[in-house]
């Protein structure tokens, strides 16, 4: 009796699984047309000002979403809806089509290009550390952290800074990933870690908000490339991406682009000087 019930339950579960699996895995056709019809695009943001910033009422702003909003307007999609997604989860979110694009200063990196496609670069910036006042461990580069095994650092899981650290001799035990950037600063203040690493403008913005005289900004961090980000897409949406690139180019040529990003502290010159192919040829 008991084994029979178990078998029934198993059959039921397998059947349910098959139904669910069947409903996934279609869609792609013409993403841009779909977005035009529904009147909005769902974008992944990390809520890391000035790259992306979700206001209390849910309105998404920040340099990357503002560029995306201007571009999408040109493409006939008037509104953006934001979904806050950790950096490490943005690629899975794109692949699972939980979001239509990621507009959050996701750096263009070869390893990421294996999974997703990018627009042309829209934001470039240097890297930074935050440390205690006076920089007691004298940390200026990732190599400095690697050389001193007693020093610990925090950054976000799966973001470029974590890869920079691991590639430059920092051991995995030295990295304690934070749940969100402000908590990372809190960990630094409380002495749980010695170094906080993130994008330059992001770190600067956090330090300004915390306004703690015991913290110090180290910027730029030497020995790491300037990080350039672009809007990210599902690899099946190549047509959508190409249309986006075209509209982004118009935005850059008209000078509107500079007007959007410069108030946030980003350099138009640095961004216009690079191409996607510099990071991910053929992406």
């Amino acid at each position, binding site marked *: 009796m008991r084994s029979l019930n178990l078998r029934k339950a198993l059959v039921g579960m397998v059947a349910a699984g098959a139904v669910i699996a069947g409903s996934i895995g279609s869609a792609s056709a013409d993403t841009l047309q779909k977005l035009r019809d529904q009147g909005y695009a769902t974008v992944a943001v990390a809520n890391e000002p000035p790259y992306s910033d979700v206001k209390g009422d849910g309105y998404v702003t920040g340099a990357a979403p503002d560029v995306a909003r201007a571009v999408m307007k040109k493409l006939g999609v008037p509104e953006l809806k934001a979904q806050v997604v*950790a*950096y*490490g*989860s943005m*690629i*899975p979110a794109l*692949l699972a089509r939980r979001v239509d694009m990621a507009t959050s200063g996701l750096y263009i990196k070869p390893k990421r290009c294996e*999974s997703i496609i990018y627009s042309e670069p829209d934001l470039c910036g240097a890297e930074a550390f935050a440390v205690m006042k006076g920089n007691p461990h004298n940390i200026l580069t990732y190599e400095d952290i690697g050389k001193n095994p007693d020093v610990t650092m925090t950054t976000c*899981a*799966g973001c470029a800074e*974590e*890869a920079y650290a691991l590639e430059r001799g920092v051991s995995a035990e030295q990295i*304690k*990933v*934070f*749940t969100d950037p402000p*908590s990372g600063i*809190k*960990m630094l203040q*409380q*002495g*749980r870690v010695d170094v906080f690493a993130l994008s330059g403008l992001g770190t600067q913005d956090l330090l300004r908000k915390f306004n703690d005289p015991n913290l110090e900004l180290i910027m730029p961090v030497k020995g790491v490339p300037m990080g350039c980000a672009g809007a990210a897409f599902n690899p099946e949406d190549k047509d959508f991406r190409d249309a986006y690139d075209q509209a982004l180019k118009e935005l850059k040529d008209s000078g509107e682009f500079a007007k959007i990003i410069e108030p946030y502290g980003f350099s138009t010159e640095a961004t216009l000087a690079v191409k996607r192919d510099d990071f991910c040829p053929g992406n």
Partner: protein
Amino acid sequence: MEWSWTVVEAVLPKLAQGLIVTIQATFVGAFLAYVLGLGLALLKMSKIKVVAWISYWLGEFVRRTPLLVQLYFLFYVLPDLGIFLSPFVAGVIGLGVHFSAYTSEVYRAGIENVPKGQWEASRALNYNSYQTMRFVILPQSIPPMIPPLANYLITMFKETPLLSAITVIELFNAANIYSNSHYKYLEPMTLVGLFFLIVSVPSAYFAMRLEKHFKPKSMRG
């Protein structure tokens, strides 16, 4: 979506380390929950009204607020007040204190279920309160407490992923960190679920056996 054994191979050692932390956190947390819970239960039954009242509401407060909030408080707020706890210590204290509020109810119910006549008999024998507890009440009330206490152990085990919010690298967090930098969720998360099952199914079976074993004799079939 395809199952990759290379990912499994890469992530397994990290998960194994995480599992150790999970089990440590469960047992240390449970130990705290059992000890603090007993203390809280005795306080709740105190003859001094104020003590009973305060400890009752203390238990209610802990039980009616989310564990996640309590963990954040222990980890991020206490250091500002000068109390600095490492992630693991903050985690087990959070777990232990939270579940002590539940276990105290188990103890209280167990003790209060001892028939009134037994208390009266102890008094008739001129036992003091220590002797009453030690030789009359506790021997009768502990056995029925054991199964629910064992069940709380299993519940605590399943609540440990909350510790990831305060940077403890337990089983779930180990998988999550891997997933975040390799963009693979299928294998790590499946394995996490599997690990939890491997531990909790036999434990649940064991708890069931305990329940049978400690059933009052009059109710045995």
